[in-house]
């Protein structure tokens, strides 16, 4: 089924039990090919043009269509609005996948290494879920943790993110130069109006993790009024390094080797180290 509007799509979803929505199919077909999924029917979202763009609301919020492709989010006009999301979209797989893979699909799949997820967590984005006759708004983090999951018959239609007009960064470690899933990622956004730093770590746990204490601490280290050479807010490099450690410590629990779990302990130490470097670099790029 290829509904041409949102209303048609939710109607079709309600009318066809067991039907599954499909956008770029980059996750869905993988599951079908591996025999993990056998949908009774597919409802293609590709023709719902309104979901493929974005609009503004109240001056300070962007409302992103679930059908935005990674390739579209990587374009300069979008990157100027929400740089960290553009960074994430740029690294979300090879070009063929980014040309069709969508924001909505990335959120609905909710894979631990989903690249847009830590960015949405750091931005404290909310999602609109629609079913025939009703919609509801839930924080993306609630969707991901399963606190308030996507229900059968529901369509993810919009993702609301605040426009912060300040530097933001997404960094991803993969262990190779070619496209790959993250072994760890860090999203970091500055919110100068609230004098806040928000950060989320991806791929190290089933859902993105927020190191709230580290965020508060580092926000206090920043002299929000001072300006460096090129007009950026500045931070002491030692504080940036400490921030990295702080974030890593908060998000990757230490595994103490007890003789039986050496591999696990080493693995955890490696991930901590990677997260620490990513968080330090992310802060360094956001603040000059």
């Amino acid at each position, binding site marked *: 089924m290829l509904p041409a509007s949102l209303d048609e799509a939710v109607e079709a979803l309600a009318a066809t039990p067991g039907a599954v929505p499909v956008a770029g199919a980059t996750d869905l077909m993988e599951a079908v090919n591996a025999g993990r999924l056998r949908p009774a029917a597919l409802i293609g979202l590709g023709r719902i043009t309104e979901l493929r763009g974005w609009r503004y609301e109240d001056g300070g919020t962007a409302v992103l269509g679930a059908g935005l492709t990674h390739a579209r989010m990587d374009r300069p006009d979008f990157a100027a609005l929400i740089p960290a999301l553009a960074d994430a979209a740029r690294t979300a797989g090879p070009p063929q996948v980014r040309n069709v893979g969508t924001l909505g699909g990335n959120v609905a799949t909710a894979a631990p290494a989903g690249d847009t997820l830590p960015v949405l967590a750091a931005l404290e984005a909310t999602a609109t879920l629609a079913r025939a006759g009703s919609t509801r708004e839930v924080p993306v983090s609630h969707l991901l943790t399963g606190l308030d999951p996507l229900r059968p018959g529901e369509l993810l239609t919009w993702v609301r993110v605040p426009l912060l007009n300040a530097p933001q960064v997404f960094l991803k470690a993969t262990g190779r*130069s070619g496209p790959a899933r993250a072994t760890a990622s860090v999203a970091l956004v500055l919110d100068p109006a609230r004098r806040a730093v928000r950060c989320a770590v991806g791929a190290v746990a089933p859902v993105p993790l927020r190191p709230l204490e580290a965020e508060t601490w580092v926000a206090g280290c920043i002299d929000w009024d001072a300006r460096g050479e090129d007009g950026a807010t500045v931070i002491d490099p030692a504080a940036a390094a400490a921030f990295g450690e702080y974030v890593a410590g908060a998000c990757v629990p230490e595994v103490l080797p007890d003789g039986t779990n050496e591999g696990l302990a080493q693995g955890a130490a490696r991930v901590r180290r990677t997260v620490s470097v990513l968080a330090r670099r992310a802060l360094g790029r956001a603040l000059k």
Partner: protein
Amino acid sequence: MSSPTDIASAAAAAQSALAQSAVDDDAQTPEPFGLGSSAPRNDALPKALGIYPYAADLWAEGLLWGAVLRAPHPHARIVSVDTSAALALPGVHAVITAADLPPGPEGAPDGAPHGPIVADRPILAAGLIRHHGEPVAAVAADHPDTARLAAASIVVEYEVLEPVTDPEQAFSAPPLHPDGNLFRHLPLRTGDPEAVGEIIVEGLYQVGRQDPAPIGAEAGLAVPRPDGGVELHLSSTDPHGDRDRTAACLGLEPDRVRLVVTGIPGATADREDLSFQVTLAMLALRTGRPVKMTLTREESFQTHTSRHPALLRYRHHADAEGRLVKVEAQILLDGGAYADVSSEALAAATAFSVGPYVCPNVFVDAWAVRTNNPPAGRMRGEGALQTCFAYESQLDQLAVRVGVEPLEIRRRNAMATGDPMPTGQAVTCPAPVAALLDAVSASPLPALPMDDPEGDWLLPGGPGGAGDPAAVRRGIGYAVGMVHMLGAEGEDEVSTATVRVSGDHATVICAAVDSGQGFATLARQIVQDVLGVTEVYVAPVDSDQSIAGPSARGRHTWVSGGAVERAALMVRHQLLQPIAANFGMSVELLSIADGKITSYDGVLGMPVGEALEGKELWATAQCRPHPTEPLDEAGQGDAFVSIAFCAMRAVVDVDIELGTVRVVDVTVAQDVGRALNPRQIEDRIEAGVAQGVGLALLEDLRTEGGRLVNPSLTGYRLPTALDTPEVRIAALLEERDVVATFGAKAVSAAPAVVAPAAVAAAVRAATGLPVGRLPILPEDAIAG
């Protein structure tokens, strides 16, 4: 699906479009012709157009679909197999288990075993499961989903056994097979065991499991024949060997089995494991209908052989100047569950354990053992690659200890033509090791980012990655290595080819499979050269043709190329004889060039086409290189026909905080004997470097307790274009190997053998870390 004529016309249209544009570009450039030219590959255009047919595209009227049930354990005893649920499924036509196989020798329950050297591997397991994914039963059904469902509904009761997964434990573990756990122990002893050097360097080196990961998974079609035989259409790279082994397992005479070779979707040596093709054939024989089977990616990883993981312990003794005094080594190859070609790989590892260097005293013990890991087999430079990483790492260490540059330590020890190998065999073919090193070192280095700040620098971690220029260190590493070509240790090497000329075109019939290595293109060039004919067709391969042997060990250029040349020369004689007689001169005084037959005195000048008019000439010839002998109990003997050498310089950038490595540039100098098709050689070198870089940084088919951890193309990381460096050819050294056909050496394996060592050396230089393990994971390259 489009019909064959559509395909043909599409190809023709594209061909003429291409030819047209070539004409437009430069009307003067003639078509590449003959040996030494960069003739375009025969298969390039259809492959680029996506119309090159592979086995997975085959279809036959009324075909059934096959599926295989595989063991979920690496080591288990089969207690019982119940196929009744599968047989009861509508649409299922046959279910086979080991009980349906013709009985093996001495009534072995799993039927006749098979193997390229030692027959020790069952087609379908009956008694013991020895590796994860070993086939247990197979099904034919009228739909692929039904077949898979039926296979899954076969109930197998296993008694799970403790797997032996550490090759070092294989020696003391109870035998996993009646043949025992030791495939081969090869000691090599030469010189004075008491010799000691002023400088001693030691190292322990580990190489992971590289998989050929062919882009097309195993696929095939079996068609039963009215005479009780079977015809198999699949991408075999050894049609006669596979035919004979298949027939033996089916209990049929070889002539009842016909193998038709389809397009090969990627092969670096062997393709299509025997269990796959025998099961396919049995299903067809059992049902009396064509059966098609395509494996999933996971099955593909489970079924074909991979590269031998290796553990190598080395001690090099040298004098104060760094000249080698003695090399001691212990080499352990994990052969996995079955013998396959482990003994061959071990011979290469042992014989080349010192590398292309001269050393008077060498003491090596090498073992290939059986474990419950996936079976290992042939893969570009098997055995030679693993030791190259080890001896080159040792030389890097030695350079540091002596206080000279890595290049200098290699120059001081480099082998030259005529020098003996530790096996006692003198290297009588050209061994231009020093010249290769000179060529790579003379080649300009790639620019540094700081010298070209405007450049579009790709940092380790890739575009949009987390790379930070402040944490990036550049490293330059050198490596040189060697690998033999053709079968070794007394293996009979032979190939047969037929050349036919009819009117203005020639046809080559030779069962040498073009696995992507370019043999068909070469055959065309040879015939063009000898006969002056432009149009040369190379016939598709099947097992009704004469034996040409497997597409492995870089043998076809020499053996099959030699056969094609001889056949073409015989045709040439037939063609020229009457003309010469007519003019009262001997054939030797006539030559063919530029499509014309000319006499020495220039009196006669006849177009080849005219001489050939209305004629059809045939000849069949064989090529059999000089024999070799097995290595004896001290590892001594003339075991190899010829050896190829290659030197490389790798330049890497390492993010020393994240441990990500990007190979910026690999510069190659290779000993090719004679460049028969420079463009094709460059392709082969690029392919070898890509594969070597993959092994050095990314590729590792991991196991946990014998179970495959990452049997998918998401989990098994193949290099992409972004992971693959700029490959530059510093030199193709053309010193003829006088005994080789055309004086040419095999080109594919050498770069794959050397690239991992070169990358490791460069990472070592960038990080100052020892780098003793391949692939080099980020945690092995963190130095910040």
